[in-house]
């Protein structure tokens, strides 16, 4: 392959990186709603098309030609320092010593490294495209674009609700689109310095987006996100330094080809720690929980296709170096612990967004655990989970946002009986929930592969078994709340959603339903070649019916739910087939809707039943200190594992 890469691939990479920047500039420069809508939608389409194009034509490396006579490497260096300078400016504005300190701790070593350590004469391919990068680009570009499209009508409503006098949407969409470009850059980077640059851009974008509303909680959460991720940034710089010291190169492909173990482990551990902070693994979970103060599309973006996925991507990418080492086992332990701890913390929550946030942290922990185990099967599970989790979680956040705009609450207790008020949104929410926990949907399938791949490591598998059951509890409870039907009447006002919201929700729900059916194809064409996992489902130890791991095997599971839906519709359509009656109240129901019964003295006694949140065990306040303490101990173990 020629050093510049094949022209088609080069063009696609250029589109994936430059179009978001261009779109962001237009969004910021022309504060006109129709222009913004057109630009954002066009960007989404181009990104989606380019990512699909990359899937079919693009493999290999790409080195962008110099612009004028300035090399792209120097541009990135300038960008690094400019970004750090801006962050330092924010540190001063926020009077934040910690952010200032962390920025200096990145800038100073980086400057030393760039100007006196790094040998600038060796050429490194800037970008490398392999199947993992392509999977990530698809997740970022397709799901990310859907989220941004959803954000267009959402932000109008959001600003109306906040009584914003001067729209801040140009700024909002500037950072949202830049975010996608940075994520694409991050996953395509082959030069560690490029990777670091994009890593920092995502940190900065998330800081700006979390603080978007400018309220006090928003500013505080943004600050927390900035300093916690800057800790990751410092670790990243240390990792670059160490990696170069050992391997004498920043070429990621070359570093990974060194094989497992050796002196590289220590700097790689630092890079993995950077990934851990970005993926909000315990004890660094609080920044992601705080991030939910942002407008919901931001959460949807951070939790599904960007930001946290950058963290797991980084760790997964580095797997060849730590595979089979003590560091790998430690990463698996930390990930498994996060999976369990975050699932437990979710049990005590009734705030819908917080439940989703903990569930994200939990699933990221599972991805980390799989990455740490670093067998072909576990790496397959990690990759699948990145994809399927992005679809389901993006969908769930968007539905919670939609629900919140319509009922004014994100508490799941307030969503009781929502199906009758908002049948469309609620149906989609239920699809999202079911896609998180039932076969044949992707998250469960990945979880299944994960448990099988962890089976040789008892301590990890115990944590996975417990965490998995806890998340089933959380999601079932929520589905039950949504599906409750206190009356038979139809909603007085039919549900109305802007078409863009509907389009985004329907596409994502469609993807959640249809993607698992293409799993055999995804495995054989995309994931298997990546991890030298040779073959099909059954050889992965994942046969549905012994020896029949084909697409056909999925049909029964679709059939179970499908038949359920069909029978329900058939029976309730024909009024003669089934009689509707009021529930049993152990007394005379007060009304047909049975929200009350006739008590003593002929008085109506309202009926109230609430979820169990098991607060004696699972309350956030009680559990968090223990979780953090456990996580810190595990991180120490991990550090020791790297040094040893």
């Amino acid at each position: 392959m020629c050093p510049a890469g094949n022209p088609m691939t080069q063009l696609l990479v250029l589109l994936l990186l430059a179009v978001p920047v261009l779109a962001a500039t237009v969004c910021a420069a022309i504060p006109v709603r129709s222009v913004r809508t057109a630009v954002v939608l066009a960007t989404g389409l181009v990104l989606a098309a380019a990512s699909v194009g990359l899937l079919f034509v693009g493999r290999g490396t790409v080195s962008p030609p110099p612009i004028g006579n300035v090399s792209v490497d120097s541009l990135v260096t300038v960008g690094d320092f400019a970004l750090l300078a801006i962050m330092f400016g924010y540190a001063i504005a926020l009077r934040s010593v910690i952010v200032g300190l962390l920025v200096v701790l990145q800038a100073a070593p980086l400057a030393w490294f760039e100007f006196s350590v790094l040998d600038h004469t060796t050429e490194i391919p800037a970008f490398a495209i392999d199947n993992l990068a392509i999977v990530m680009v698809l997740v970022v570009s397709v799901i990310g674009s859907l989220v941004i499209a959803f954000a267009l009508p959402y932000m109008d409503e959001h600003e109306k609700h906040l009584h914003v006098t001067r729209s801040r949407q140009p700024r909002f969409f500037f950072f949202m689109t830049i975010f996608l470009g940075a994520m694409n850059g991050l996953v395509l980077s082959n030069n560690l310095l490029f990777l670091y640059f994009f890593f920092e851009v995502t940190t900065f974008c998330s800081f700006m987006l979390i603080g978007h509303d400018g309220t006090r909680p928003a500013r505080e959460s943004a600050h927390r996100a900035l300093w916690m991720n800057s800790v990751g940034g410092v670790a990243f710089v240390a990792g670059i330094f160490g990696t170069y010291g050992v391997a004498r190169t920043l070429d990621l492909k070359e570093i990974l080809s060194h094989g497992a173990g050796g002196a590289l482990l220590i700097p790689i551990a630092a890079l993995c720690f950077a990934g851990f902070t970005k993926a909000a693994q315990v004890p660094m979970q609080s920044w992601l929980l705080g991030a939910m103060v942002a407008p919901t599309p931001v959460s949807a973006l951070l939790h599904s296709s960007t930001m946290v996925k950058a963290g797991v991507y980084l760790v997964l990418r580095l797997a060849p170096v730590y595979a089979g080492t003590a560091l790998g086992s430690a990463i698996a332990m930390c990930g498994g612990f996060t999976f369990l701890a975050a699932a437990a913390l979710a049990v005590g929550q009734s705030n819908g967004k917080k439940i989703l946030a903990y569930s994200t942290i939990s699933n990221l922990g599972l991805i980390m655990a799989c990455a740490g185990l670093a067998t072909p099967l576990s790496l397959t599970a990690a990759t699948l989970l990145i994809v399927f989790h992005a679809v389901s979680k993006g969908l769930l956040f968007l539905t919670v946002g939609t629900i919140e705009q319509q009922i004014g609450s994100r508490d799941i207790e307030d969503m009781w009986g929502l199906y009758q008020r908002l049948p469309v949104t609620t149906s989609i929410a239920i699809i999202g929930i079911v896609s998180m926990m039932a076969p044949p949907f992707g998250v469960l399938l990945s979880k299944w592969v994960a448990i099988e791949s962890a089976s040789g490591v008892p301590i990890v598998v115990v944590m996975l078994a417990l965490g998995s059951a806890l998340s089933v509890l959380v999601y079932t409870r929520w589905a039950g709340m949504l599906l409750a039907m206190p009356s038979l009447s139809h909603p007085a006002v039919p549900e109305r959603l802007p078409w863009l919201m509907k389009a985004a929700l329907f596409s994502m729900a469609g993807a959640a339903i249809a993607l698992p059916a293409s799993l055999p194809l995804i495995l054989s064409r995309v994931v298997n070649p990546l991890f030298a996992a040779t073959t099909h489902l059954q050889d992965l130890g994942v046969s549905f019916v012994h020896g029949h791991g084909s697409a056909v095997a999925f049909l029964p599971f679709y059939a179970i739910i499908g038949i359920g839906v069909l029978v329900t519709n058939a029976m309730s359509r024909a009024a003669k087939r089934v009689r509707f009656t009021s529930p049993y109240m152990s007394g005379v129901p007060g009304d047909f809707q049975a929200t009350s019964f006739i008590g003593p003295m002929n008085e109506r006694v309202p009926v109230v039943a609430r979820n169990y949140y098991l607060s004696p065990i699972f309350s956030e306040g009680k559990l968090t200190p223990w979780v953090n303490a456990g996580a810190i101990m595990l991180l120490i173990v991990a550090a020791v594992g790297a040094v040893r």
Partner: protein
Amino acid sequence: MSSAIVRAVLSTAVALFVAPLAIALLTGVDRRVTARLQSRRGPPLLQPMYDVVKLLAKEPTVSNRAQIFAAWTYALAAAASVVLFCLGADLLLVFFVQATGAVFLVVGAMSVPSPFSQIGAQRELLQILAYEPLLILVFVGMYMVTGSFDVSAIAAYPKPMLLELPLLYLVLGFALTIKLRKSPFDFSASHHGHQELVKGVLTEYSGPFLALTEIAHWYETALVLAICAIFWAPSVWIAALLVAVTYAAEILIDNATARVTWRWMFKYTFPLGLVMSAANLAWLYVR
């Protein structure tokens, strides 16, 4: 090739028809034995089947549509899990399919605003939370012994697994008791009209839909007992004896213990099950 198809068809038929009827009969025996233990005569052996036939003939009555969906998916998923087991599928898959059904039963109960049904549903969720991890760990133990999650491969293991997984078999017993909603773990569906929850999670299912949940429960019981049986796969007779002894123990425990609260379950029985599983797994790992 054709013999494989014939075998698959036969297995499916056994799973769909023989398994639930056998369990119905077993339930009949259970009721008789329990009655004798309580100095009553007890119903005819076929009473559980008569009950279901009668329920199926009743007018279908529900509070809302979600219940229809819940009852059907519960029954379909439970039946599918037994079929998959008999076809020799992956144990975890069998389990997840079964779990999906169990979860829909709860969703259906939650969809009705009756407090009995609501609280029953919450308690059923806690029961699921208690037995799910235990069952997964039992399967992991089987994997560590046999090197496979496939029922067909596990059943072909030449030695009895019980000898290597004694603690996990007891854990499976826990899970079975919780799954059967037998005392002391029957707090999600206490059976007597005058008691706190009427019939808990099942309160709002009636007529044919209640029959569906009953049939689903037969399938579920068949599945757990089948899992008990593969602990002694080499000999069908010893496996049958093992299942018989286990079920007899269940009946005895059911009659000898009082209902515990969910708090008690999480404080005492659940950690005990977890420690026993971990000990057994650790032993396999170190060995």
